């Protein structure tokens, strides 16, 4: 799609994974094969050494598309070369707010994922593979069920695949609504039929994962890239993107933009190209105020950062992250404190409750942000919110707590004025308009604080502006 936008310039997608995805027949085996699907698998099983595949994957620099950005090839090479039963789990839990790329990839091209999984399993001599798909994606799970059935019938799955002696079973496993199951070790628990609670690492799944066996866990998009890399080689893959972030990326852009959706681009295009050029920029009459560059867990960025390249390294340098590649745009109509509150509400709901800093921290932050939004907090509470975030980070079993702490503390830091204004505005609403007589018959206290707030602040031994320490 080529379009000239005053703010973005001419921007074109680079569709590799989503190529021809608008053609509905791509979702069927016949359609996929008519576009060259399963050609690479046939070739690989016949004439390519598994070690070569692992080497190419490593050399390609393909980084995980599920959030952490770890080298996929390295992960494969960590699997021990023993005869133990090994497993592959495709992470299709996709529950991070803002992310919806895996949904599109599975819906439009399920066989691309399945082929990638078969080749990866072949490379790592894995005999059992699973696709763990979130329960809400029932429509996509049905599509995958059908595609897996087709692949079995065509002899691409099962025993002695295409006469090669290689066996692989693939099961589509539906989750049932719990964000935490996207965390790789919780995913393993959910697959083992337990409540999805993260496990202590190490041991890492590559050593001891599903049923205690070595397990490779990768995201849908990561695995969808595999057949392309094996077909075209690592150098071809590296010709896309930047040195540290090679390849293309399906980016989910949503929020206050004209054309929300998934766009596949080379890593390294600018955020402006993505948000303005492709997604059409903010709605008419509005301006961008902030955006999450990598899903709701990423620290927010501001319009000043729109010209940064969209790559793992540039986002990290800007103090944020690329994560799953999901941009949520907030325009000037959005209240940042309330956006922070939505964010904390989500993580509070999804915390599995195993670690105290996460369970209590998400819950406290959510309650404090509620008080900000109702004017019951004081500016000093903002400091407490920030310090609570610092105490969550790095102190938990998994990074769910950090995933709330990072964006919330970035919002408090970058939009502190707005938080203070919100507190003042909301507090003012509890007073009658002449400003003299309080609705509850009490005088407003120093700093416009309600008597209730003042009392709490005094009890906590905190200083009240204009009063000194009481």
């Amino acid at each position, binding site marked *: 799609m080529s379009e000239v936008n005053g703010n973005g310039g001419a921007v074109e997608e680079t569709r*590799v994974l989503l190529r021809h995805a608008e053609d509905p027949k791509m979702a069927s085996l016949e359609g996929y094969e008519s576009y060259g699907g399963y050609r690479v698998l046939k070739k690989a099983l016949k004439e390519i050494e598994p070690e070569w595949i692992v080497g190419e994957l490593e050399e390609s620099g393909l980084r995980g598309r599920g959030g952490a950005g770890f080298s996929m090839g390295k992960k494969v090479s960590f699997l021990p070369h023993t005869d133990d039963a090994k497993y592959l789990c495709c992470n299709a839990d996709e529950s991070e707010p803002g992310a919806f790329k895996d949904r599109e990839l599975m819906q439009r091209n399920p066989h691309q994922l399945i082929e990638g999984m078969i080749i990866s399993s072949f490379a790592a001599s894995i005999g059992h593979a699973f696709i763990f798909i979130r329960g809400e994606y029932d429509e996509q799970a049905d599509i995958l069920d059908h595609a897996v059935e087709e692949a079995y019938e065509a002899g691409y799955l099962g025993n002695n695949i295409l006469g090669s002696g290689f066996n692989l079973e693939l*099961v589509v496993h539906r989750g*049932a609504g719990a964000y935490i199951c996207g965390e790789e070790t919780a995913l393993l628990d959910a697959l*083992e*039929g337990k409540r999805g609670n993260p496990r202590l690492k190490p041991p890492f799944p590559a050593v001891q994962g599903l049923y205690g066996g070595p397990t490779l866990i990768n995201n849908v998009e990561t695995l969808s890239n595999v057949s392309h890399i094996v077909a075209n080689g690592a150098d071809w893959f590296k010709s896309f993107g930047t040195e540290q972030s090679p390849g293309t990326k399906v980016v989910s852009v949503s929020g206050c933009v004209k054309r929300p959706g998934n766009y596949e681009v080379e890593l390294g295009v600018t955020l402006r190209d993505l948000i303005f050029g492709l997604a059409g920029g903010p709605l008419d009459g509005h301006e961008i105020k902030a955006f999450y560059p990598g899903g709701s867990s990423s620290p927010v960025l501001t319009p000043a950062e729109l010209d940064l390249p969209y790559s793992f390294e540039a986002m990290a340098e800007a103090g944020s992250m690329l994560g799953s590649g999901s941009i949520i745009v907030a325009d000037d109509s959005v209240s940042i404190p309330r956006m922070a509150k939505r964010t904390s509400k989500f993580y509070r709901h999804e915390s599995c409750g195993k670690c105290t800093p996460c369970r209590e921290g998400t819950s406290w932050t959510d309650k404090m942000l509620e008080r900000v939004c109702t004017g019951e907090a004081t500016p000093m509470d903002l400091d407490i919110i920030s310090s609570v975030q610092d105490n969550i980070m790095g102190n938990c079993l998994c990074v769910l707590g950090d995933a709330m702490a990072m964006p919330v503390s970035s919002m408090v830091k970058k939009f502190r004025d707005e938080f203070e204004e919100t507190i003042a505005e909301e507090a003012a609403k509890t007073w009658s308009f002449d400003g003299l007589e309080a609705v509850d018959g009490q005088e407003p206290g120093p700093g416009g604080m309600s008597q209730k707030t003042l009392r709490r602040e005094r009890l906590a031994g905190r200083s009240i502006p204009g009063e000194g320490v009481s």
Partner: protein
Amino acid sequence: MSPVMPSDFDPENAEPEGFVSPGLPVDKASTSGRLPIGDPEQIPDPAEVDIPDDLRDQIQAIVDKYPDRDHKGSPKSASIPVLWIIQRRYGWCTPEGIVQAAAVMQVTPAYLESVASFYDLLRTSPQGEHQVLVCTNIACWMRGGDELLDSFCAKTGADLEAAGHGGALSEDGRILVSGFECLGACDLAPMASVDERYFGPLENADASTIVDQLESGAEVLPEKALDRRGLAGGVADSSDPRVVDGKGPNQ
């Protein structure tokens, strides 16, 4: 899930006040308004549990898909998919259904209860014939998700407060309305999942249309269904020679 008053609620089988189910985790499982059947800590004897043959076969087929104990696997792996089968058949994870599943899988009912209570989509109390999940997470909230949830509640008479905290049934008990965290469809914002299919972007007035369609059995808003939607970037082919001359799939 507070004021859920199911039409098939059986007061004979209700919990006395303050009752905690023995052996069950003290969360949703113990508040779902019923006594467990038999001893939840005992693996039921399949000979003593009445299970329809087709259900037994369905459950067994799922268990067989996972590696068995001889391959270091466990029948427990089938827990979530089997609970889905129970929920699809009985409308929710009923105590009877859980005992039936436990008997085939050879695990304890308490175990399946604890799994069911962990997951938002598995319901341990009646959930109506239709489910409407309205996303109220960040992107949908920015584009009117809260108002959409209000509209669904206004139309069905479901309690707004309860709908925002786990779900509430419509006045006639047929439709469950629930605010939900991100459903993975921010491109459709504001959106809802209606009987496990995605629709969006929705306007407040669509809530009324959808409820009428559900009640009359008509197809729900076909023009706003996810499967009718094209790619955001439209139909496009690349001129990039690396893409055009690639040797992989999608050529």
